[in-house]
């Protein structure tokens, strides 16, 4: 059974490889048409969101712009969401996906990710500044709002001893946090950063060190090795020159240990 499905996957992969090999490679196409099309988020402040004029700006659009500059082509940004970003890539609607996508083994079966990872998100909490949280241990036995079905819920309860209060969606969890039904809201640190940048949440902070880091990858269509390697080289550059750390600062993102480590690694 297991062997059979392996063969099927391998066969499919071979077929795909063959198909793309016959095709001209995308990197060359981009150069010849003079435009790089990148899918980014438009609703995930500050990683990709709309400025008042309706232009997509943010951390990831800046990375996309850098790639376009390296290629000497124009940049076209396409707004994507979690549910369509991989299809857009597979259908060729976008050349690259830089859209807060976690680099997971499951996804690697259908698209390719440039190496190394450019960024990533961890789990953190959003809490009132006046709560003076210092470490995860401070949350032991305390009520913490969660989103039902989040992968980190069990670990937070089991390992850190929080009393989870899980809601169906973000809006409910945020309302409960505001009402004081929990001392903090555990969520993706990258999403919390965006929340904290709105005046509504000015009394709140993200006080802890993120845990459970999940790396994000820049996606290319499977088999686009030239494009993939080009992005990979650029990513190494970003880490080496401290570009990522600079962008963190630019977009008001609390400096992460991960970005610093990557900088040290490629320095």
């Amino acid at each position, binding site marked *: 059974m297991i062997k059979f499905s392996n063969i099927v996957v391998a066969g499919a992969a071979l077929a795909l490889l063959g198909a793309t090999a016959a095709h001209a490679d995308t990197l060359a196409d981009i150069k010849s048409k003079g435009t790089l099309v990148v899918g980014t988020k438009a609703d995930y402040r500050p990683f990709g969101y709309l400025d008042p004029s309706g232009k997509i700006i943010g951390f990831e659009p800046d990375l996309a712009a850098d790639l376009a500059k390296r290629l000497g082509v124009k940049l076209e940004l396409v707004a994507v969401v979690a549910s369509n970003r991989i299809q857009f890539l597979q259908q060729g609607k976008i050349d690259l996906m830089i859209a807060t996508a976690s680099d997971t083994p499951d996804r690697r079966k259908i698209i390719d990710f440039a190496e190394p990872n450019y960024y990533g998100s961890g789990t953190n909490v959003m809490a*009132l500044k*006046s*709560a*003076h949280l210092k470490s995860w241990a401070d949350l032991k036995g305390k009520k913490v*709002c*969660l989103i*039902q*079905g*989040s*992968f980190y*819920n*069990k670990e937070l*309860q*089991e390992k850190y001893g929080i009393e*989870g*209060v*899980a*809601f*169906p969606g973000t809006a*409910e969890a945020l*309302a*409960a946090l*505001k*009402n*004081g*039904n929990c*001392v903090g809201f555990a969520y993706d640190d990258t999403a919390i950063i965006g929340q904290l940048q709105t005046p509504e949440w000015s009394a709140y902070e993200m006080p802890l060190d993120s845990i459970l880091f999940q790396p994000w990858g820049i996606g290319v269509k499977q088999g686009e090795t030239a494009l993939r390697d080009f992005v990979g080289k650029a990513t190494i550059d970003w880490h080496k020159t401290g570009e990522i750390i600079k962008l963190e600062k630019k977009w008001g993102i609390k400096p992460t240990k991960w970005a610093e480590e990557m900088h040290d690694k490629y320095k």
Partner: protein
Amino acid sequence: MDAIWHWFRVLYDTTGINLPIFYDAFDRRRFVNGLWMTLALSVISIIASVAIGVVGAWLQGSRLRMTRRVVNGYIQFFRNTPPLVQIYFFYFGIGSLLSTTGPTGHPVPLVSNVAWAIISLSFFAGAFNVEIFRAGVEAVPKTTIEAAESLGFSRLRTYLLIVLPLAFRISLPALNNNLVNLVKTTTLAYAIAVPELLYVTSQIWSDNLNVPEMMNVLLLVYFVLVGALVLAMDRWERAIRVPGFGA
């Protein structure tokens, strides 16, 4: 005991049927707590909603028009809106108003999510119970009430000693249905993070990716729970049945 728990681990390893609520101490504790929470929600809401029904039906017979209007307004409100919306309304709507400020400037809610769940479930089922008891009260012959009155019973005593016991017997089948519904409706407390059965089960299946197994467990537990309630109510109905009265 450990041998039994271990058997479920072996079951998982050999067949892939994953029931961590037996072999994993953390999940087991969660599940048992959820079961207790569901029982607590059910029992407290049943008692409170029956009390609301009894008092409401009494107030509906009030001589003051204002009182009757208030009771009718209450019934309309809770009968004509979805219970999930009511729970949200209480928890997020009323709950945000009912908070004090703690020493560090935090808002501190005065009523917990569990309490809100009990309050809204009780009011929800209570509205139906008022109607159910009212129908029962109206079925008690006027002449029986007059006899009690002529014996010197006060209005309240007549209601408590004569009308209510008779109305109860008349109302019991309808009450059964409503209470069964109430037990099933406790699952809505899930929406405001009350760790009852559905909530803990969905946490467990999110963490273990064993949705089919836990779905079955959930279904079975509710089936047994509601079955026990129906059985108890049937027994009770038979125990208080009097010859020559009611069905």
